[in-house]
C-alpha cells in the first residue's frame, strides 16, 4: 500500500461514508412514506374504504397455427363462463346467500341449487372464484349480464378455448390444448400458469407450448361491493398482454386432406408425407383419430376413459409412436447396404429363386411360392424376391446392414418437433448379446435382410427413409414447424443421422428398381399416369392377427417433392392394401390442377384473421 493511495484514508472517513449511505437509505424510506401516507393519503383512503381493487385478467391470445399456405388449423374461440366471485370474508357488504338468490341463479345457469350452494360456500371460504357454468350459450350469458345488479357476485367471464376448424384433421400432429388441471398447475407453478389457462397437451400444441402461449396482462380495477367496476386504477406499469407467437407449419392442407380422405376407411394405421427437399412434414394421419375440439371444451371422465382406454387408443400418434416391423420396405436398406459394401452390383445374379431357400437346416420361403427364377439386383427389388435378399443378407453380415439402417436414421428418434416420439429398433450384435446372451444366429440375418425379425420402425422413419433415398442419401431433419411469427431466427434442427454415402450407380439402380416396383412390380396399385413414382411394398408378419400392410414411395422420381409412408395394421398385403392408398393421394396431389404447384415457403400475412378473443 503506497502511503499516498486513498486506501490510507482513515477509518473515521470510511465510517462517515458508510453512515451517510445508511442515512440516505433511511431518508429515502421516510420520503416514500411521506408521499404515500401524507401526500396520497386521501386517494388510498378512498380505495381502502368502500371499494376494492382486484386484478382483471387481460388474456393473452394463444398463438394460432397455420399450414404452410397460411390456412388456419387452430385458433381461439370465446367461451362464456358464469362465475361467482366472492367478496372478502370481513366485508360488511357481503351478500348473504338467500334461497331466492340461489333459485334465480340456478334458473339462469340451469344447475341444481344444492350444487350451487356448495360451490358458493367453497368460493366464500377460499376466496377463489367458482365457475358455475362453463361454456354457456350466449343467450344465457346475456341474461346474466342483464340481471347482474340483482345478483351480486355473479359475473360472466369470457375465457378463450381452443378451436380446431378442421376437427379430426391432423389431430395427432396438432395435438390439443385444454384447461390446465390442478396437478399440472402445481407442477408448472413457477411458469406462471393460473387456473383457467390453456396448456398444450400433445402434438405441436405441447412441443411449442412456450412459444404459443403468450403472457397474460392485467389491469387493476376498482369495484364496488356488488362487483361492479367503478374505475380503473392507474397504478404501477401497464401490464399489457403479450400474445403468443403464431406457428406456420410445414403441413400442406391439400396433402393432408387428400391423405385424411384416403385413410378414412382405415381402422388402425398411420401415414406420413414428407417434403424430400427439406424434411418438412406435409401430412400426417394416424387412425383412429380424435376430435381435439372435444378436449378443448373439456372432457367428462367417462369420455376420457373411453378414449384413453378403448382398444384402439385413438390418442396414440401411430405415425411417431407406433413401431412396426418394416417388412419388405426394408429391402431398400438391404440393397443399398449391399451396393455400398460391394458385395453385389446391380447386375449380380445369385442362385435362382425356386420359391424357398434352405439354410442351416431350415427352409426360408419366398413370398412367391412358384419362385422368381434368376434375377439381377434391380429385378429382385422390383419383385421383392425374398430368396435373393436372403443371399444378400448372408453376404453382407449384420454390422454393415445395421450401419446403413442407422445412417438412414432407423432405430433412433428422428428428432421431429413432436412429443414422445419412439425410437424403433435396429438390433445389432450388442443388442443380441444383451437380449439372448449369445451371438446372433445366422438364420436371423436372413429374416433381417427382408425386414422381419426384431426390426421396428415408425411410419415417420419410413417416410424419412423414402425422402432420403429420393435425394441420394443426403440426410434430412423431420420437422413440423416451418416458422414462428415474430421469431426471425427460428430454424428447424439439423439432421440427427449422418446420411448415406453411396456411388452414383448404386442410387441409380435403386431408383430404377423402385420405379419398376410401381410401374411393373409389386406396387402397381400406386401407379399414376404421367407421374414417375418410385416405391416399395411391404407386408409385415405379426403374431397378432393379419399382416400389416406397408408402402413407401416418392415422386416425381426425377425431382422429388413428396415422399410418403403408409402402415395399415392387420389388413393384408402392402401391394394390395397400402399401395392403392398411396396412389390415391398421389393422384390427388399431382392431379391436373395442382401438378407442379410449388409449395409456398413463406405464408402470407394472416394476422388479420379474427381470433376468439
Amino acid at each position, binding site marked *: 500500500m503506497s502511503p499516498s*493511495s*486513498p*486506501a490510507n484514508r482513515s*477509518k*473515521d472517513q*470510511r*465510517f462517515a*461514508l*458508510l*453512515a451517510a449511505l*445508511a*442515512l440516505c*437509505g*433511511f431518508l*429515502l*424510506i*421516510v420520503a*416514500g*412514506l*411521506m408521499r*404515500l*401516507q*401524507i401526500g*396520497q*393519503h386521501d*386517494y*388510498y*383512503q378512498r*380505495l*381502502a*374504504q368502500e371499494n376494492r*381493487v*382486484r*386484478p382483471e*385478467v387481460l388474456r393473452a391470445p394463444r398463438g394460432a397455427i397455420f399450414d404452410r399456405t397460411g390456412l388456419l388449423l387452430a385458433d381461439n374461440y370465446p367461451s362464456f363462463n358464469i362465475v361467482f366471485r366472492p367478496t*372478502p*370474508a*370481513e*366485508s360488511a357488504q357481503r351478500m348473504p346467500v338467500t334461497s331466492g338468490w340461489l333459485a334465480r341463479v340456478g334458473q339462469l345457469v340451469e344447475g341444481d341449487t344444492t350444487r350451487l350452494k356448495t360451490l358458493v360456500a367453497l368460493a366464500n371460504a377460499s376466496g377463489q372464484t367458482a365457475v358455475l357454468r362453463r361454456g354457456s350459450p350466449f343467450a344465457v350469458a346475456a341474461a346474466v349480464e342483464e340481471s347482474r345488479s340483482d345478483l351480486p357476485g355473479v359475473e360472466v367471464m369470457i375465457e378463450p378455448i381452443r378451436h380446431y376448424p378442421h376437427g379430426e384433421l391432423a389431430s395427432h400432429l396438432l395435438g390439443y390444448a385444454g384447461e390446465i388441471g390442478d396437478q399440472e398447475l402445481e407442477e408448472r*407453478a*413457477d*411458469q*406462471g400458469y*393460473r387456473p383457467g389457462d390453456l396448456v398444450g397437451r400433445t402434438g405441436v400444441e405441447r412441443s411449442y407450448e*412456450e*412459444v404459443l402461449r403468450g*403472457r*397474460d396482462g*392485467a389491469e*387493476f380495477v376498482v369495484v364496488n361491493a356488488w362487483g361492479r367496476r367503478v374505475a380503473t*386504477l392507474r*397504478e*404501477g*406499469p401497464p*401490464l399489457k398482454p*403479450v400474445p403468443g*407467437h403464431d406457428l406456420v407449419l410445414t403441413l400442406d392442407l391439400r396433402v393432408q386432406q387428400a391423405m385424411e380422405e384416403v385413410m378414412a376407411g382405415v381402422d388402425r394405421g398411420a401415414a406420413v408425407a414428407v417434403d424430400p427437399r427439406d424434411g418438412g412434414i406435409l401430412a400426417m394421419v394416424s387412425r383412429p383419430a380424435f376430435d381435439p375440439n372435444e378436449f378443448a371444451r373439456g372432457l367428462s371422465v367417462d369420455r376420457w376413459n373411453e378414449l384413453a382406454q378403448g382398444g384402439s387408443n385413438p390418442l396414440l400418434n401411430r405415425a411417431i409412436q407406433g413401431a412396426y416391423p418394416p417388412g419388405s420396405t426394408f429391402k431398400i436398406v438391404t440393397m443399398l447396404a449391399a451396393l455400398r459394401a460391394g458385395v453385389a452390383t446391380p447386375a449380380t445374379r445369385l442362385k435362382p429363386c425356386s420359391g424357398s431357400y434352405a439354410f442351416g437346416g431350415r427352409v426360408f420361403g419366398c413370398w412367391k411360392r412358384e419362385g422368381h427364377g434368376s434375377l439381377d439386383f434391380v429385378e429382385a427389388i422390383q419383385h421383392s424376391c425374398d430368396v435373393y435378399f436372403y443371399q444378400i443378407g448372408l453376404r453382407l453380415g449384420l454390422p454393415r446392414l445395421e450401419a446403413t439402417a442407422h445412417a438412414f436414421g432407423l432405430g433412433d428418434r428422428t428428432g421431429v418437433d413432436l412429443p414422445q416420439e419412439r425410437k424403433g429398433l435396429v438390433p445389432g450384435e450388442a443388442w443380441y448379446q444383451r437380449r439372448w446372451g449369445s451371438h446372433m444366429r445366422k438364420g436371423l440375418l436372413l429374416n433381417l435382410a427382408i425386414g422381419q425379425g426384431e426390426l421396428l420402425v415408425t411410419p415417420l422413419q419410413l417416410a424419412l427413409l423414402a425422402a432420403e433415398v429420393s435425394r441420394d442419401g443426403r440426410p434430412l431433419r423431420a420437422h413440423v414447424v416451418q416458422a414462428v411469427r*415474430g*421469431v426471425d*431466427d427460428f430454424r428447424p434442427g439439423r439432421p440427427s443421422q449422418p446420411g448415406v454415402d453411396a456411388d452414383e450407380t448404386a442410387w441409380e439402380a435403386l431408383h430404377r428398381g423402385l420405379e419398376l416396383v410401381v410401374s411393373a412390380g409389386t406396387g402397381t396399385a400406386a401407379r399414376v399416369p404421367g407421374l414417375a413414382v418410385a416405391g416399395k411394398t411391404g407386408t409385415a408378419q405379426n403374431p397378432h392377427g393379419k399382416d400389416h400392410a406397408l408402402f413407401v414411395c416418392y415422386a416425381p422420381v426425377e425431382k422429388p417433392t413428396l415422399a410418403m409412408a403408409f402402415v395399415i395394421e392387420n389388413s393384408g398385403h402392402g401391394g394390395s392394401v397400402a399401395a392403392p392408398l398411396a396412389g390415391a393421394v398421389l393422384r390427388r396431389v399431382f392431379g391436373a390442377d395442382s401438378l407442379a404447384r410449388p409449395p409456398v415457403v413463406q405464408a402470407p400475412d394472416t394476422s388479420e384473421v379474427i381470433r376468439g378473443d
Partner: protein
Amino acid sequence: METRFRLPPVDLPMAIAALALLVIGLLMVFSATTVPGAHQGLWVRQLLWLGFALCAAWVAAAIHYRAYESLAYPLYLLSLVLLAAVLVVGTSAMGAKRWLDLGPLRFQPSEIAKIATVFVLARRFDAPRLDLTRLRHWLVPLLITSIPFALVAKEPDLGTSLAFPVILIAMYYWAGMPLGQLALGLSPMLNVLLFFLTGSLWWFGALFVGLVAAVRPKLSSLLVVLALNGAVAYTMPHLWEHLHDYQKRRIQTFLNPGQDPYGAGYQLIQSKIAVGSGGFVGKGFLRGTQKALAFLPMRHTDFIYSVVGEELGFLGALTVVILYAIVVLRGFRLALAARNGFASLMTVGLVSALFYHIMVNILMTIGWAPVTGLPLPLISYGGTALLVNCVQLGLLQNVALRRQEY
C-alpha cells in the same frame, strides 16, 4: 449508590432498539394473524420462537468471537453443502427452492451462508500486510462470495443472493480498498448491469477506460479484470441474441417478479393501499381495515410493514425506521470502535447485510423496489429468520462486549 451493579458493556442503544423492534414485530404478527384465515394464531408460535431466539442471541454473544473466527471455513463449507442440498432436495415455495425440510424445522440455508461468508471474509481481510490492490488479495474474496451468490441465485432467489455482493463491497471498503479499485473489481457486475439497462457494451467500455485511467491498477489485476470483462462482453450479447422472446421474458420476470399481476403485482398494490390509507396516525392497533389484505398470504411475512403502515400510520412507520437506523448506525459505529480487526470487519459485514434486507423489504412495501420475497428483519413472521437475525445481533453485542480487546 454504593453497591455498584455494573451492566456488561453491551451497546445499549442498539440492544434497546432491537428489542423494541422485536416487540413491535410480535404485536404486528399478532395483529396480522388475528384475522380469520389460514394463519390465525400464528403469533403464538412466533412468541415461542422469540424466546428461543433471544437465548440463541445470548449464546452467540457469550462465546468469544475468536471461536467463530476459527470456525469460519468449516461453517462456510457446511453452508455451501446445504445450499447445494437445497437445489437438489429443497422444498419449493412460490416456484423457488429455498427451504430445507428437517422434520419440524424448515430453514433457508442462505441465512447461514450469509453469516458464514461474513466470517470467512472477515478472516481473510484481517490478514497482516493485506493489500487489496494486489490480485490475489482481492480475487480470492470475490470467488469466495461468488459461490454462495450463484447457488442462491440459482434457487432462484435474486433478492437474497444480492446480499452477498453487498456484504463483499462493504467489507472490501472497510478493509481499505480504495473506491476506484472497488469499482474496478466489481466492473464485471457493472458490465452485465449496464448491458441489461442500455443494451449495448459501449457505455461500459467508456466507463471502464475512464476507470482504469483513474485507478491505474497493477498489471496482474488489470489483466484479470480485463479478462473477466472480456468474457462478459463476449457472452452477453451472444447469449441474449440466442434467446427466444419467451426466454427473454423469463429473465425479465426473474429480475422483476412484480410483473406477475396476480401474485406479486397484486400484493404490491394492496400493500400501497394499506400503507397509504394508514395516514399520519394510522387506524390503530388491530384496527386495520384494508380488508382485501386478508386475501393475501404474505401479510404476516414479507408484507408485515404494510400492516405497520396501516395500523400505526406514518408515526409508527417512522418509529420503526428510526429504530432500524439506530441499530444500523450503532452497528457501523461499533465497527469503528472495535480494536480487533476480525471483529470490526465482521460487524461491518453483518450490519450491511441487515441494512440491505431492511431497505429491500421496506422499499418493496411502499412500491419503490421489486417484489423479491425478503422478510423484514426482526419483525416478519418466520421462526428461523427470527433466530438468525437475533444471532446476528448477538454477534454484534459480542463485539461490543470485547471492543477493547485487540
